[in-house]
């Protein structure tokens, strides 16, 4: 019989375990930082999806694919632009690819579809495009933060600009009949009317309406301007037909009505269109000029809503990853850093994140002009440090129902 040298065995095991642990921790530090990127490559949202991808790719290229000392592995997933696809791809990214952070998704209804899941799995998520108000208002998700503003945020600033600077008194509104269109129009209406203006008409063409002719024919002629709240191809279609019908009233609009992504396809009908936005390719700063030049060099186009959104999501992830010294595995700390990054800096300037996960930033009033033969959003006024609540008290703002077709109620409509 021989005795098993328990002590020696225990020591050996102990040493092996220690080695293993050490190896693991070394590996954790050398493992790449995995970013799951939700985009759309087919269907009506594909153009926006491509610009999102361009934004993040440019960011990573400029950083040599290294963030906070860690190599980045970007895993791109195509949601197909629908809620079910967004949910599936998010699950895949989290459970199969074990991503540390998700950037995306593109559409608000996709963001709503993954809301519960990212909460359950505690997945840090940076929205680079979805602007639905309640995502950072009445339905705040602790695992969600935005690099873009809320739908109404720039339109509230535009409302004041229209009433105070332009001195408009009467405005007719026409906007896409879905949540984003409702929210952009409502934010504009609220601040415009609080500053003494009157919204005398509201039209809601269905999102996929074949023809705007019948709506343009209804627009009131005795107004100072028309507010056009459109997304995707609809801004392009509406503005073209607006001009074809010989309409003369100036056009105001939401950020996406004259986004750089579709501006390149427009003609003279876009000239003079004035919109609110948290970004404009025409921002006159050295940082933005460098950014616009880089995007033009890489992709041959001006950056707009989506390019900036995805690029900035990268900037935000980097700021937070640096704050936790690259230890993105510690989810709580990493998420806390994403929600409290301090001052973030990108092409639009400096911005912060408010208590609800939405940026506080400069709102630009942009006017489409032709420069060197190219249509550009030039900045005509800036409203610095603008929050999603405009100048209203957040508590009172949140106590009211979310912006919609009929909120705030329009009291000045004329038959």
């Amino acid at each position, binding site marked *: 019989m021989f005795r098993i040298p328990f002590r020696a065995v225990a020591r050996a095991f102990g040493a092996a375990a220690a080695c293993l642990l050490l190896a693991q921790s070394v590996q954790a530090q050398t493992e790449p930082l995995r970013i799951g990127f939700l985009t759309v490559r*087919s269907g009506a949202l*594909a153009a926006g999806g491509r610009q999102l991808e361009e934004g993040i790719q440019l960011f990573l290229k400029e950083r040599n694919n290294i963030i906070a000392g860690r190599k980045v592995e970007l895993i791109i997933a195509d949601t197909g632009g629908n809620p079910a696809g967004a949910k599936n791809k998010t699950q895949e990214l989290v459970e199969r690819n074990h991503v540390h952070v998700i950037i995306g998704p593109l559409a608000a209804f996709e963001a709503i579809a993954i809301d519960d899941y990212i909460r359950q799995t505690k997945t840090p998520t940076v929205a680079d495009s979805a602007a639905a108000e309640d995502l950072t208002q009445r339905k705040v998700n602790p695992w969600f933060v935005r690099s873009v503003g809320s739908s109404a945020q720039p339109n509230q600033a535009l409302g004041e600009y229209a009433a105070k600077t332009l001195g408009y008194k009467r405005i007719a509104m026409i906007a896409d*009949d879905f949540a984003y269109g409702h929210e952009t129009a409502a934010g504009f209406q609220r601040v415009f009317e609080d500053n003494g203006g009157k919204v005398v008409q509201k039209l809601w063409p269905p999102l996929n309406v074949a*023809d705007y*002719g*019948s709506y343009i024919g209804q627009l009131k002629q005795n107004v100072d301007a028309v507010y056009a709240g459109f997304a995707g191809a609809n801004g392009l279609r509406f503005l073209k037909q607006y001009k074809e*019908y010989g309409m003369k009233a100036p056009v105001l609009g939401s950020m996406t009505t004259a986004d750089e992504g579709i501006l390149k396809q427009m003609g003279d009908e876009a000239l003079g269109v004035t919109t609110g936005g948290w970004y404009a390719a025409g921002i006159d700063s050295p940082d933005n000029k460098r950014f616009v030049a880089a995007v033009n060099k890489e992709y041959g186009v001006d950056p707009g809503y989506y390019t900036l959104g995805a690029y900035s999501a990268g900037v935000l992830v980097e700021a937070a990853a640096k704050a936790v010294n690259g230890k993105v595995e510690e989810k709580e700390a990493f998420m806390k850093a994403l929600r409290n990054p301090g001052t973030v800096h990108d092409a639009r300037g400096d911005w912060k994140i408010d208590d609800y996960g939405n940026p506080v930033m400069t709102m630009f009033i942009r006017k489409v002009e032709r420069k060197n033969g190219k249509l550009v959003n030039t900045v005509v006024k800036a409203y610095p440090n603008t929050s999603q609540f405009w100048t209203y008290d957040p508590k009172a703002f949140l106590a009211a129902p979310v912006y919609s077709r009929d909120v705030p109620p329009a009291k000045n409509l004329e*038959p």
Partner: protein
Amino acid sequence: MFDKPLAFWLIQSLNSLSLGGLLFLLSAGFSLIFGLMRIANLAHGAYFMLGAYVGLSVLRAGYSFGLAMLAAGLAVALLGGLIERFVLRRLAGNPLAQVLATLGIAFIIADGCLLLWTGDPQQLPSPEWLQGVFRIEGAAFPKYRVAVVAFAILLAGGLWLLLEKTRTGAMIRAGVDDMEMARGVGIPVSMLFTAVFCLGSFLVGVGGVLGGPILSVYPGLDTDMLPLALVVVILGGVGSLIGAFIGSFLIGFVYTFGQTLTPDLAYMILFLPMIIVLAIRPRGLFGRIST
């Protein structure tokens, strides 16, 4: 509701006509194919979009609008002919499989367009001499839309002559009415199928170019247009040219005035007349065969 100025009624009537004209360009081919071959060609919206994109490329290359229409029509006709010969023909006698095949083809075309023409929405310029407006009663109406209505009416006339006054037309009508009998009396039904599929595809390709300046071209145009074609053809009656014609303009008026006078019903107004007609007259207003 009825206290609107005269200009309102005039402009909206013109809008109704122009939408009707557009719908006829879209649905004439659909009706022809459906009537003769009993195939609801679900790729029809995709053909329309493809036509618009081909037209756009031809225009960008510096050629005229007329040439863009012709090129788009021929390109889509060629594609339609190939699909009829090599896909639908193999599934003959199995209408469900044929319809599913056309749906698959629609997806393939849509993805192909995305690949070739990117996802950016694009504008198809109207011919220069048709830019500008007519002024009526202080209101303005784009010239191009009037031209679309005129073209739709001319096309309807041409198709009527083809179907009613030519030998080919008689063969097509015979095929629609009774396929077996037509085959029995020696009409080359197989050839006819391919010819009609090409013709229907040609028409919708041309329609895509003509619709482009009004609708713009963008991914999703296909799925926006397909339901409109279905509604028109179901309302007007399958296989009937006059049905497609009347149905188009009827829908044009109902849709335009429905949307403007009762905006809250904007979503159902398109389908309401279709449901009523189907309930009362299941084969549609002028249908030769029941759907």
